[in-house]
């Protein structure tokens, strides 16, 4: 195994001053291995452990949290950390090499930390949540695999390892969504997620192959360098490769129209949803787009409008769906899809930092919201908001943290969501996508509206469910408070124009990387735009509260009255699931008929014609050539063969020693021939 360390472009830009990070970087691979090791250990020994393997999973995650925190702190300094290590595993052929390794730069450090921090909170929470459930050991094993695969993905210095992590994430999500597979719908949801992802993965794999062949390398730094230098080799295929990679990202990051799996993925236990929506699964697509950002920025610019279009549809259209959902997790799921649309739009529009910043803040408040929802579900034993209501008196901790998360998601000043959403809006404005920007503002309104609805229906009014709801145990509420802190404060790190002492800013963190990304950063707050975004959020909250608050009239009637056309459309999720099935059906019937017609008339005709022709020819041949010429030869041959066989078969007596004797005699003959004749 050879080891190669990336020194490429280290002399350029911000990377020039970067340190290697010492042993923390040189052994950062441990973070990638740790959860994988935990997976193996839990699978092998988990059942015999005191906490059925949870302690191992949490231990591995805590280790990762500590390690990545150190890396984050190192990266906060003026210089930042830049390190890369690749171990050559095998040559693939054609000059391509299969390598495994890890990369430590601003982007991956941020992802390490987000995965570890959110993962740790979720794992601890899950330990409480899963108490008494079935297959807890397997659950934690798969959870470790999930987080580990995501770390392999984000730590990858090349596209191949990324695919490995990518598929690992897909596998783990399949296992976890279908955790309660006794219910048919759960296993169906798992398969839906898997299939949808596989469809997208085809695009990713083809894209990677194209890049690998044209570039002669799978390394991200080579890709970035080629893009930065406007490589002639990569140029012609850049748009195709970029769109294929984006297609893969659409699947993982649930962009329209491949988002259909994500809301159904709610079938998994709630901690899985929290992890999936916040850190480990859906962010993979955004991460891929960010990692390959130079490709889109420099070469595949033609792909960007399509990406923006997909992102914009996702961010607004899918947000609307959250308005009518009754399942609280479904509301949050659609909000995730919508927020992913924000991120994708931002990255596609050139807002590298903006998109990732939103990913960063979103991870915390979305994990917080999901865990809160899980806590509520744990208490009332139902996913439906129509079975909830008035829970703020019963579950004060959950209520407070959920409201914090909701406000952050809605983008209320000064919570984290406000800052990241504002940065996206500013970037869209700077890049000149004004229409998109105003759609995004409208999206913010929708976001605030449905979050207000969710909070009102869940925590206010009268309790409509069964039994007596109770607050969750501390092991579940403490992670909620732990996540509430960054949900409030995470925005501070990237206020435009503000550079905090010691901490620096998010932009600076991300600026440490092997290749400069060359995206734009606002140097000051655009007060007007911020005010517009804030106004949309406040308006959404106010309207939502008016419509669904405790003083509002009966909610169900209003839904139908208020938006006559939209409501059924939204209820049926724009008929997209039907469309997907219909698409298959529509393609299948005519295609089959067409193939049948071609078979009956074209191919059969050709075959019959050729057949008839051959028949006639054969008649000629049979009479003349075959009967007399060939048969004579064949008969003669067979007669000769049989005669020879009669002679030779006497030699094949079945007596070993006779064989041996002939063998020695033959060898002798051969020796004599070689020695004396030749």
């Amino acid at each position, binding site marked *: 195994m050879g080891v190669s360390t990336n020194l490429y472009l280290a002399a350029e830009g911000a990377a020039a001053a970067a340190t290697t990070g010492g042993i923390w970087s040189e052994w950062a691979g441990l973070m990638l291995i740790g959860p994988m090791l935990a997976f193996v250990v839990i699978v092998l020994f988990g059942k015999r452990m005191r906490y059925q393997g949870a302690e191992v999973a949490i231990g591995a995650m805590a280790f990762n949290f500590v390690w990545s925190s150190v890396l984050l702190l190192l990266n906060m300094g003026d210089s930042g950390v830049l390190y890369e290590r690749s171990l050559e595993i095998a040559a693939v052929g054609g000059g391509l090499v299969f390598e495994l390794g890890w990369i430590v730069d601003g982007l991956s450090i941020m992802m390490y930390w987000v995965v570890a921090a959110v993962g740790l909170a979720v794992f601890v929470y899950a330990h409480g949540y899963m108490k008494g459930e079935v297959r807890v050991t397997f659950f934690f094993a798969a959870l470790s695999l999930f987080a580990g695969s995501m770390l392999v993905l984000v730590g990858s210095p090349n596209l191949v390892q990324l695919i490995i992590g990518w598929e690992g994430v897909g596998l783990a999500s399949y296992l976890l969504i279908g955790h309660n597979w006794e219910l048919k719908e759960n296993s169906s949801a798992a398969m839906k997620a898997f299939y949808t992802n596989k469809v997208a993965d085809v695009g990713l794999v083809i894209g990677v192959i194209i890049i690998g062949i044209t570039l002669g390398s799978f390394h991200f730094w080579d890709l970035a360098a080629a893009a930065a230098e406007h490589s002639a080799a990569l140029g012609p295929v850049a748009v195709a490769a970029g769109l294929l990679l984006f297609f893969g990202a659409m699947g993982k990051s649930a962009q329209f129209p491949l988002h259909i799996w994500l809301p159904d993925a709610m079938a998994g236990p709630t901690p899985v949803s929290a992890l999936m929506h916040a850190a480990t699964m859906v962010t993979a697509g955004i991460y891929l787009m960010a990692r390959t950002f130079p490709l889109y920025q420099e070469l595949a610019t033609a792909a960007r409008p399509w990406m923006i279009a997909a992102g914009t549809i996702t961010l607004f259209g899918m947000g609307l769906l959250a308005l009518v959902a009754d399942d609280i997790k479904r509301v949050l799921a659609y909000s995730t899809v919508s927020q992913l649309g924000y991120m994708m739009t931002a990255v596609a529009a050139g807002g590298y930092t903006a998109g990732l910043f939103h990913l960063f803040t979103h991870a915390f408040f979305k994990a917080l919201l999901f865990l809160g929802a899980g806590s509520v579900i744990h208490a009332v034993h139902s996913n439906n908001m129509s079975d909830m209501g008035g829970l703020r008196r019963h579950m004060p901790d959950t209520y407070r943290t959920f409201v914090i998360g909701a406000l952050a998601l809605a983008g209320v000043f000064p919570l984290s969501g406000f800052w990241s959403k504002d940065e996206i809006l500013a970037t869209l404005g700077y890049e000149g996508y004004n229409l998109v920007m105003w759609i995004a503002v409208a999206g913010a309104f929708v976001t605030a509206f449905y979050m207000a609805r969710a909070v009102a229906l869940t925590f206010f009014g009268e309790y409509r469910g069964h039994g007596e709801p109770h607050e969750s145990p501390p092991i579940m509420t403490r992670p909620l408070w732990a996540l509430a802190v960054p949900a409030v404060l995470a925005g501070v790190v990237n206020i435009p124009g503000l550079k905090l002492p010691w901490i620096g800013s998010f932009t600076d963190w991300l600026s440490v990387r092997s290749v400069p990304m060359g995206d734009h950063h606002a140097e000051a707050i655009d007060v007007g735009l911020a005010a517009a975004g804030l106004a949309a959020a406040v308006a959404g909250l106010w309207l939502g509260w008016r419509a669904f608050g405790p003083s509002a009239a009966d909610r169900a009637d209003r839904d139908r009255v208020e938006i006559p056309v939209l409501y059924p459309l939204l209820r049926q999720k724009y008929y997209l699931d039907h469309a997907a099935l219909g698409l298959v059906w529509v393609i299948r019937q005519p295609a089959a008929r067409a193939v049948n017609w071609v078979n009956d008339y074209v191919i059969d005709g050709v075959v019959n014609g050729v057949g008839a022709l051959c028949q006639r020819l054969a008649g000629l041949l049979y009479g003349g050539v075959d009967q007399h010429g060939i048969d004579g030869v064949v008969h003669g041959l067979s007669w000769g063969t049989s005669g020879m066989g009669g002679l030779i078969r006497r030699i094949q007596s079945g007596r070993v020693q006779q064989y041996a*004797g002939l063998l020695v005699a033959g060898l*002798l003959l051969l020796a004599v021939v070689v*020695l004396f004749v030749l």
Partner: protein
Amino acid sequence: MGFEDWAAEPLNWVFLAVALATTISGLRVVTSPNVVHAALFLVAALAGTAAIFLLLAAEFLAWVLVLVYIGAVIVLFLFGIMITRAPTGRDEAEVDHQRRLPALLVSAALFALLSWGLLSQWGDTTLDGITAGTPTSVLAEGLLGRFVFPFEVVGFVLLAALVGGITIARRDLSPAEERERESR
């Protein structure tokens, strides 16, 4: 090197005696009508071989030959013979084929060819420098150093032969016998 020189070396007379004994024993191995006698003559032939090894200063190999062949392999042979035929006393069974002449011709021709080749290749090249025996440590270092992989493979082959021999030779008990054995 003339015959006088050759005869002046006492070891050559030892060789001659050993070689004569070995040859006669070998001849009896392939001609003796009695299986047990043949096996016992093989012991003599192998003892002669070991003596030749000693003449060639291959001490270790000589004792390996004695230990493995005479001590184990031949015993195994006799064991096998006695289990399968046990021809105590006179053995009337025909042990040779009727057709001996072709075999004799073939082996004689082989010997002629081999001796011709050896004589024309080596002539009367003398064998010098075997004053001291090969130290066992050299063999050990070779076996466990450069040839450690073949060594392991041979060990594996032996193990496989052991397992295979047991598997082939063991008699599977009939169900009734099995039950009887268990009840005992």
